[in-house]
């Protein structure tokens, strides 16, 4: 979706401000909601791509106003309600609905730590043919999907060169909507900065590398 989350190349957002000696979490609740997102992922009612998409669905004005972890609150609520793990009424009241069943068992501390230590690879060991080869000139398709996509607007319609083939990965545009993994090759595509931004781009040799799935590309 052409959402406000797709920020590459936008103007007017102000300077980058670095905080010295920044804590991992600024408030206790930030750590709690971060951990709740990870722990709730253990129920496998959604996947990584749906998790990202839940935050993209936050209305643009809200998205820009909210802090990072406020978005994680909104996204988790959306996912839990969609997957019927809880209801809006329960979230508003803070107590389980009368007669609702209790889910068991929740992820234990050891299981939760094992989950993050192990990770969840998105690469698939599948024999899927690559549509492009290293060194080939390609063009990012000029598409505007209504749902989740990882093809940024600033690259659409632009030409680049396949720098390397990362192998076969889950395709987020399908997976975020529970339409299957549609595994396909992902490539690192090198775009000249001047191809993306025109003559104003500072360095003639400067470039931006984007990781692109087969379905995002066509031969240049």
């Amino acid at each position: 979706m052409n959402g406000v989350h797709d920020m590459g190349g936008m103007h007017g957002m102000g300077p980058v401000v670095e905080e010295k000696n920044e804590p991992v979490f600024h408030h206790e609740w930030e750590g709690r909601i971060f951990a709740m997102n990870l722990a709730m992922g253990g129920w496998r009612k959604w996947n990584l791509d749906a998790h990202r998409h839940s935050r993209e669905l936050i209305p643009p004005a809200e998205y820009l106003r909210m802090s990072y972890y406020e978005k994680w609150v909104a996204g988790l609520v959306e996912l839990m309600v969609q997957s019927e793990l809880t209801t809006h009424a329960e979230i508003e009241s803070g107590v389980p609905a009368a007669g609702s069943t209790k889910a068991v068992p929740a992820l234990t501390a050891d299981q939760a730590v094992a989950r993050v230590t192990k990770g969840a690879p998105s690469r698939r060991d599948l024999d899927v043919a690559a549509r492009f080869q290293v060194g080939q000139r390609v063009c990012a398709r000029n598409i505007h999907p209504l749902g989740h996509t990882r093809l940024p607007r600033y690259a659409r319609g632009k030409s680049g060169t396949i720098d390397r083939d990362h192998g076969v990965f889950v395709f987020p545009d399908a997976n975020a909507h529970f339409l299957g993994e549609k595994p396909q090759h992902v490539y690192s595509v090198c775009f000249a900065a001047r191809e993306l931004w025109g003559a104003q781009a500072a360095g003639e040799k400067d470039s931006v590398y984007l990781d692109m799935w087969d379905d995002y590309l066509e031969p240049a």
Partner: protein
Amino acid sequence: MTSNLNQPHQHEHDHQAVPSDPALRVKALESLLVEKGLVDRAALDALVDVYEHKIGPRNGARVVARAWSDPAYKQRLLSDADAAIAEMGYGGMQGEHMLVVENSAKVHNLVVCTLCSCYPWPVLGLPPVWYKSAPYRSRAVIDPRGVLREFGLELSEDVEVRVWDSTAELRYLVLPEKPAGTDGMNEEALAALVTRDAMVGVAKVSVSKSGSAA
């Protein structure tokens, strides 16, 4: 908790608004999820502990220091980062597929995620606020040299800037240049020089900045 949206046409999304006190909201949410059996408080405590105390940029700094000290390790790190980082005991969520990019006198690498805030957690920990902010996400790809200037890093025109936008599941770690005046330093001393910012590509490693573990 009602919405404070000022966009009535978006009423279908009202439920996503977060009230002004997220602390209360999150506390109530945690109680609800515990009550429903969906989360175990001990699991939340453990996860917070992992990211506050166990996983952070010191991990990445040790990887960099070893690469600076051991040419064979550096080769493995650049050719198969997952295996080389696993050798050091690091890996896991948001670091399943790693790529290490090397800075030199001629090439400067910078990492961003314009679409959200993808970041290599196992080696750098959770990202700082500036990395997740709209200014960084919007500008790193269109004006990397301007962004670097704000971090106090002025690159000469003949240095090639490569920006890595982490739009897929590959996660990037910058291998900074080993600073002059560090010959003979052991890995532990070298690791103490390596900052988070240098491993994202918004800074260089310098001997004078020793101890500022930004």
